[in-house]
């Protein structure tokens, strides 16, 4: 290890200011601090510091996502075998799934790294580990059969337009992973709109996703009945929870998402307020719609709160996207409002406008946009309290 340390220290001199490779300093800094923890000293401020840093913070989010990847790969294989009508072992299902997941993962990381490094070098800022999280999130929101060139363009768009043009991590307004997802949703709707089945199968294989069943019923019935009548996939509540259904790679198994969320809350990285509030918002609105359902022929209104939580990517979005610290609100009161509104908007977009069967992505992006405004009014109330004291 000392040998490696010496090489790094020596090569580091080539990247110093005024040296020929100085433009690539961010790249060297990233390599250096990934391999060996930094020896930076406390110069200004306190003389001692906590052992938590951004690297570990971001790494923990990636850890929380790994189970979703593993299950996602298995699910791809499982659904493929089911479509072909063959029975196949867990391992071979998993391996088949991996042949779809790995290329997606690799392409996303290449696209993300190119954008992040280019901007770090041009803007002369450090390579922020946050891009690892964005790149780890994007594949999980994709259907397994997404064309890789679309993915490359989408990821680049997300990282550049969602993050870098605002000044990089810490100053971005929109969640980069969701920006990428939204871009692809509108640019390549045939692959990713969420109406037709998101699974790998034989040529011409098609079917309805859980969300599009009550959105386009052949005749009006309650969502529960429609789910029960569906024959192609098992949309029972229990199976919606276990996730052996078609969907984006990471969204289907709700247990693993919940475990990831609990892990992040326990570590103090993600905000439990946002997650709790968005579930409350969803339950409130879905409950309200259930009451209104009898006055309407829209079957989406009959989806129960529990079904809303379990179908689509609501939980995945809430746990991993809505709670993203930079683009959410920065005050605790604001976090409650922000989360609650995400829950409300998700149900409204899903139910009231069946053209968009999945609502959570747009709900989060809309609330990303409103987060600074919410904070503004929360902070304003603190200012008013202080001003009234002065008067």
């Amino acid at each position: 290890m000392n040998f490696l340390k010496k090489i790094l220290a020596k090569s580091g001199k080539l990247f110093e200011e005024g040296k020929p490779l100085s433009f690539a300093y961010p790249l060297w800094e990233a390599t250096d601090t990934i391999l060996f923890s930094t020896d930076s000293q406390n110069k200004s401020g306190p003389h001692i510091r906590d052992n938590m840093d951004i690297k570990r913070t971001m790494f923990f989010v990636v850890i929380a996502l790994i189970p979703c990847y593993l299950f996602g790969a298995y699910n791809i294989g499982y659904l493929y075998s089911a479509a072909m009508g063959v029975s196949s072992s867990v391992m071979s299902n998993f391996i088949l799934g991996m042949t779809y997941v790995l290329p997606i993962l690799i392409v996303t990381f290449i696209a993300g790294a190119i954008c992040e490094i280019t901007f770090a070098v041009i803007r002369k800022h450090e390579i922020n580990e946050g891009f690892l999280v964005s790149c780890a999130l994007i594949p999980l929101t994709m259907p397994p059969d997404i064309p890789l060139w679309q993915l490359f363009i989408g990821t680049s768009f997300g990282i550049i337009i969602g993050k870098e043009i605002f000044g990089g991590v810490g100053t971005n307004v929109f969640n980069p992973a969701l920006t990428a997802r939204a871009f692809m949703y509108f640019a390549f709707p045939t692959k990713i709109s969420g109406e037709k089945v998101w699974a790998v199968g034989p040529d011409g294989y098609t079917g309805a996703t859980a969300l599009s069943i009550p959105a386009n019923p052949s005749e009006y019935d309650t969502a529960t009945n429609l789910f029960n009548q569906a024959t192609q996939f098992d949309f029972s509540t229990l199976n919606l929870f276990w996730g052996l259904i078609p969907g984006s790679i990471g969204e289907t198994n709700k247990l693993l998402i919940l475990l990831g969320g609990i892990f992040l809350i326990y570590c103090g990285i993600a905000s439990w307020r946002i997650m709790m509030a968005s579930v409350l918002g969803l339950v409130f609105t879905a409950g309200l719609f259930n009451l209104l359902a009898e006055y309407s022929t829209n079957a989406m209104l009959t989806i129960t709160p529990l079904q809303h939580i379990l179908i689509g990517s609501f939980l995945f979005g809430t746990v991993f996207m809505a709670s993203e610290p930079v683009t959410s609100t920065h005050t605790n009161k604001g976090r409650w409002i922000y989360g609650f509104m995400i829950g409300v908007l998700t149900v409204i977009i899903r139910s009231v406008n069946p053209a968009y069967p999945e609502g959570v992505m747009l709900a989060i992006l809309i609330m990303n946009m409103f987060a600074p405004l919410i904070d503004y009014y929360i902070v304003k109330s603190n200012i008013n309290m202080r001003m009234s004291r002065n008067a």
Partner: protein
Amino acid sequence: MLKIKVKKGHNINIAGVASREIFAPQKNNTVSLSPENFRYIKPKLLVKENDIVKLGDPIFFDKLSPDVKWPAIASGKISKIVYGERRSIKEIIFSIDTNIENEQSNSEKKKLGNKDDVVNYLLEKNMWPFITQRPFNKVANPSDKPKCIIVSLANTAPLSVDYNFTLASNKDSLVSALLNLKKLTEGKLFVAVNPGEFDYLSDLDFIDIIQVEGPHPSGNIGVILNHVNPINKKDVVWTVQGHHLPILGKLFSDGIFDPSITINLSGPAVSNPSYFKSRIGASLESYCKGNLSTDQVRIISGDVLTGKESTMNEYLGFYHSSISIIEESFDRSFVGWLHPGGSSKYSVFNAYLGSNKSPYNFTTLQNGSHRAFVPIEAWEKVFPMNIYINALLRSIEANDFEEMEQLGIYECDEEDVALCSFVCPSKTDVGGVIRKGLDTIYFDK
């Protein structure tokens, strides 16, 4: 009695807590008074090198407020005056003359009736710099009318001196100091104590006791005021360091200036952390030499969160009462960010398995690289004031004076946000930004 329960905050479990023993004075041949310990002053010297001075004699005054003079902190010779850039005065070093050690030119006692009497007496005795003010944490302006005075005897900073232990035998001088401090304000005199300490103070009807409970920074003046009597724009609050109370007490009751204080030497790099009888501006060398457990150390005058990095040849800061020593580490562990945990890690986050259990050997390592700020509710965990610190920092960076005032910058000081910097995963220097904001506002006036 007011009671405050602070929930947010953190008591850092750092190794090297001083044992409850007070050792006899070390041999202190030189002491130093450094104008750099006082903010926003323009010192003008009243002495020159090799002058013989006695305790309490005026040494320099502030050109911006000529009434305020600083006292000689020892009797003896001015052995050296150290100048910095553009002939700024860095330090005035006294070599103590043991023959005249306790002699003073002015040991007259006076009966003090009202505020003016007390102010004039302190100014006459050159003892005014012991009174500091909030906001800005600077030497008070004698012509101000403070809305209240506050003294905190609850020292919650890591490895700071325990006043209940060091001031145990100073009851009379403490009472005398508080009695006269009360005359300085028409408002209240708040004294903050930990539960069950300084019981005798509750018999004094002229003070308002505040009992503080909870982790650091609950004992900080800024935090206590934020809870009981927040500082508004144009408000001034005066304060005195707890360990300076006996000095003022003796001055009021006996007319003499006794610069002795009890300090502690502590920290993970100290072999025998303990308390010492010492004096203001004492030489650090006499305490540190032979008491270090390792060679590469950082010596800090003050506590580990807000103290000043010093060398062995330097001196204890005027307002400081502790010397903290930590190891200078340049250790680089292989893929350190993957480390599972154990006793080699310390974090307020649940980010390491089995960490924080035993007193931790903190070093000077930043434990991570500086990154763009990611608001993961880290600061909020340890900042118990009714202030949106995140918004305040942004207004400071944007140089928005009005918003800084509206968001409560007058209520904050570096020490109140030191823990925010400690926990920040992006390694932001929150205190530095707050100080920058206070400086901009101060110089704009």
